[in-house]
């Protein structure tokens, strides 16, 4: 059913797991001592706001409208750029972090709805697109304990198995399988390759490249037609600056498109219009489990640029 708000502009409201009739009177807004009681959610104008979108004053949403808004941006990106069509099989790259968790959730929501429509329709002409999930195990390049990585993989399996029906195939692939040979040999070759790069930034960028190559390999070997990344606005902003700094201007414009068709399997970015803080807020509000394997702050150019972009954002509000 349509959202009641006349300013609703998302192409198809996100209903969530239960189809709710009306936005429920909000239960948990914490307005201790503040004077925001007279403020209402900018969209439904019924509930008290609990989240700030990136627009500051103009984007105070209640939980439901916040979710709708975010899902709306995702759906719009997918529709306008024909990212996912019925005959497609999409591979969602899941790192365990908040952005990829949200894109996985939203892709699942879309698939679930498509499945329901398909089941309800007598005319079964449009198939439901397939979804697979890929997690790249980079433990051979980090110093995590094997217990740590095993627990992380177990958590990921659980997350993916709970996103059913429709069920999704999960690929847990070690980064060293980028080399055709497997096992110890692959690990050694990877170590040699990374050791040949002396600077931190170079190593990070090389790993990013290897990741996408491996995703291409998995997708192509298993019949997937699209790779979905959770790349968000914030990451795009950082990339614009860091690519400029590194002299990668030639490829920059193609790097930040909604659809990157330079690859054999096109790579799509449906969260391109969603800033990181909104994705993080959604994970927190909706209890979307995140699996974090963090190695501490990045000390190279990429980390510096990320901090810089945050400072710029913070200063925007002043």
């Amino acid at each position, binding site marked *: 059913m349509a959202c009641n708000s006349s300013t609703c502009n998302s192409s198809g409201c996100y209903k969530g797991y239960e189809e709710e009739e009306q936005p429920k009177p909000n239960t*948990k*807004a*914490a*307005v*201790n*001592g*503040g*004077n*925001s009681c007279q*403020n209402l959610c900018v969209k439904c104008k019924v509930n008290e*706001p*609990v*989240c*700030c979108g990136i627009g*500051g004053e103009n984007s*105070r949403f209640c*939980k439901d409208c916040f979710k709708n808004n975010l899902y709306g941006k995702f759906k719009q990106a997918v529709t306008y750029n024909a990212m996912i069509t019925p005959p497609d099989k999409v591979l969602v790259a899941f*790192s*365990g*972090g*908040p*952005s*990829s*968790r949200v894109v996985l959730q939203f892709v699942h929501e879309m698939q679930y709805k498509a499945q329901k429509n398909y089941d309800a329709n007598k005319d079964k002409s449009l198939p439901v697109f397939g979804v697979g999930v890929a997690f790249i195990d980079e433990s051979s390049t980090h110093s995590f304990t094997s217990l740590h990585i095993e627990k992380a993989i177990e958590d990921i399996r659980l997350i993916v198995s709970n996103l059913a029906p429709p069920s999704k195939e999960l690929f847990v692939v070690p980064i060293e399988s980028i080399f055709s040979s497997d096992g110890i040999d692959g690990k050694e070759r990877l170590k040699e390759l990374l050791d040949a790069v002396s600077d931190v930034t170079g190593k990070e960028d090389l790993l990013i490249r290897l990741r996408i190559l491996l995703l291409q390999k998995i997708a192509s070997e298993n019949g997937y037609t699209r790779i979905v990344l*959770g*790349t*968000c606005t*914030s*990451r795009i902003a950082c990339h614009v600056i860091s690519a400029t700094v590194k002299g990668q201007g030639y490829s920059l414009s193609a790097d930040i498109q909604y659809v990157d068709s330079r690859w054999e399997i096109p790579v799509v970015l449906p969260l391109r219009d969603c800033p*990181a*803080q909104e*994705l*993080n*807020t959604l994970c*927190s*509000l909706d209890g979307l489990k*995140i699996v*974090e394997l*963090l190695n*501490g*702050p990045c000390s190279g150019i990429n*980390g510096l640029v*990320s*901090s810089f972009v*945050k*400072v710029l*954002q*913070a*200063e925007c509000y002043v």
Partner: protein
Amino acid sequence: MHLTLEFGGGLELLCESVKIHNVNVDLPKGADKLSMRDLLAWVRTNLIKERPEMFMKGESVRPGVLVLVNDCDWELSGQLDTTLEEKDLVVFISTLHGG
């Protein structure tokens, strides 16, 4: 005042990798309320074991750190002036790491 504090997005690495902390914070001398400003100072002194500049900048959190008080963005409740109550849940999430 008893509060629950959660750290995510990598901030837990600054608190000896503990994500959830159940703490008891004393009100500052002569004050009858505890503000987020007071809490942040308390956290920096008592919970942050390394690299405090990754968590705080001046008297507020470092840019890129999301703060939710009882599932509500602190921008909406007055940021540093937000007053806290018994058993409140404060969540700090660093958005510097992508995902």
